């Protein structure tokens, strides 16, 4: 029996649909370097839009099965790779953060719900998946990233620009690096905006697949500056399950909607607690609040994270739990959420912003 043609291989692969992008993987340009040998051995590269792809393994087996069933095929070799695409099919890179493909903001509206913990672990999980990742701590008054990443050092300068701090394979910048120690940053609103802008413009971020931005609470200066300065790919909203947190999270989400920033979805933090002595599951802050809020607002629910002592311990010790205890329930939840965030982010790569022409 003779080997199939490349077109026949592409035809069967064209039946594999990307669940998030809603199109087949061939027309999305994910199949590359396809080769069919005279003996019927088929090799090709399957290029995902993110290394944190939640359906990576499913795609691989679907591709192997579909091609393997073709008459004349004697073997299938699929190389899985990933190439994060820049947001919004931009014709040219934006002037601010030119080397950054995707910017993901983490916000909550309300304080104390674990934004920074989520942002740090989200960034670390994306890094673990193989992406190049930066983390910008936009909380000028209460920077938490230096402690949580064990990176309490002062950034070095090169050619008049600050170099991000390297920790856990990520590039970091926080006002806690710039203004360390017990010294508070006593700024009025407009200064906060300037400080955040400086952390984008005057820091040499280089090339990044994802820049995760940890926002302070509130729906004012910091969030506005950010939404005006860069085309954010999207925003992930963190809340705890109780009403007082979800109500404020909804306000934050609606603010970003007004600024045309896509909500990537809601994350429920401190969702449950398993008592180490009795093994019982307690829902201290209630449970499911974020999921029902997400449903009400028509945005994705990205997942729930348990309340675990180890998450706090490792944050204080300076290593994100996804790195220090990857087998813990908390770490697994973060990794799963990071995949969901990456998938939602990929969808934005195929969205186009309005194009303006002046004659």
């Amino acid at each position, binding site marked *: 029996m003779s080997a199939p043609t490349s077109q026949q291989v592409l035809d069967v692969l064209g039946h594999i649909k990307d669940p998030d992008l809603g199109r087949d993987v061939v027309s999305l340009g994910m199949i590359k370097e396809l080769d069919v040998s005279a003996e019927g051995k088929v090799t090709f590269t399957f290029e995902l839009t993110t290394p944190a792809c939640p359906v990576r393994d499913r795609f691989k087996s679907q591709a192997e099965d579909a091609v393997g069933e073709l008459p004349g095929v004697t073997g299938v070799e699929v190389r899985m790779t990933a190439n994060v695409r820049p947001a919004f099919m931009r014709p040219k890179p934006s002037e601010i953060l030119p080397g950054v493909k995707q910017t993901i903001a983490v916000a909550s509206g309300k304080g104390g719900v674990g934004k920074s913990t989520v942002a740090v672990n989200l960034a670390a999980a994306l890094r673990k998946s193989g992406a190049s990742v930066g983390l910008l701590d936009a909380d000028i008054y209460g920077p938490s990233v230096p402690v949580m990443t064990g990176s309490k050092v002062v950034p070095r300068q090169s050619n008049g620009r600050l170099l991000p701090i390297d920790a856990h394979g990520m590039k970091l910048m926080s006002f806690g690096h710039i203004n360390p120690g017990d010294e508070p940053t006593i700024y009025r609103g407009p200064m906060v905006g300037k400080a955040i802008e400086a952390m984008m413009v005057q820091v040499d971020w280089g090339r990044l697949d994802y820049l995760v931005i940890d926002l302070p609470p509130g729906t004012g200066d910091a969030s506005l500056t950010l939404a005006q300065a*860069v085309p954010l790919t999207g925003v992930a909203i963190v809340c705890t399950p109780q009403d007082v947190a979800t109500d404020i999270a909804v306000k934050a989400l609606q603010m970003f909607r007004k600024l*045309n920033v896509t909500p990537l979805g809601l994350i429920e933090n401190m969702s449950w607690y398993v008592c180490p002595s009795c093994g019982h599951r307690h829902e201290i802050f209630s449970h499911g609040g974020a999921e029902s809020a997400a449903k009400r607002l028509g945005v994705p629910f990205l997942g729930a994270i348990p309340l675990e002592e180890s998450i706090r311990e490792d944050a204080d010790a300076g290593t994100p739990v996804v790195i220090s205890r990857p087998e813990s329930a908390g770490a697994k939840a973060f990794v799963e959420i990071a995949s969901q965030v990456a998938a939602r982010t990929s969808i934005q790569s195929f969205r186009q*912003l*309005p*194009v*303006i*022409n*002046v*004659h």
Partner: protein
Amino acid sequence: MEITWEDGSKSTYTGEQLRWACPCAECRGEAGMQGRLARVQTLSPAELRVRDVTLVGQYALQIAFESGHATGIYTFSLLKRLMA
């Protein structure tokens, strides 16, 4: 100025139309005070010519006119309303 929207449809605006629609506080007025556009009858040609347009995040345009006036942030929803 021409905008091609996300859905592929196009809108065309004249500088004059945009200048008279400027949403900034000086032009619109604030705190009960009348804005400049409510007080003047005519604007000079330099005020009506668009010099530069910058994208603000992904929700608005900042339009600069030849006269130097550039404080208006035109949200996409405002620009769509102007066409309706």
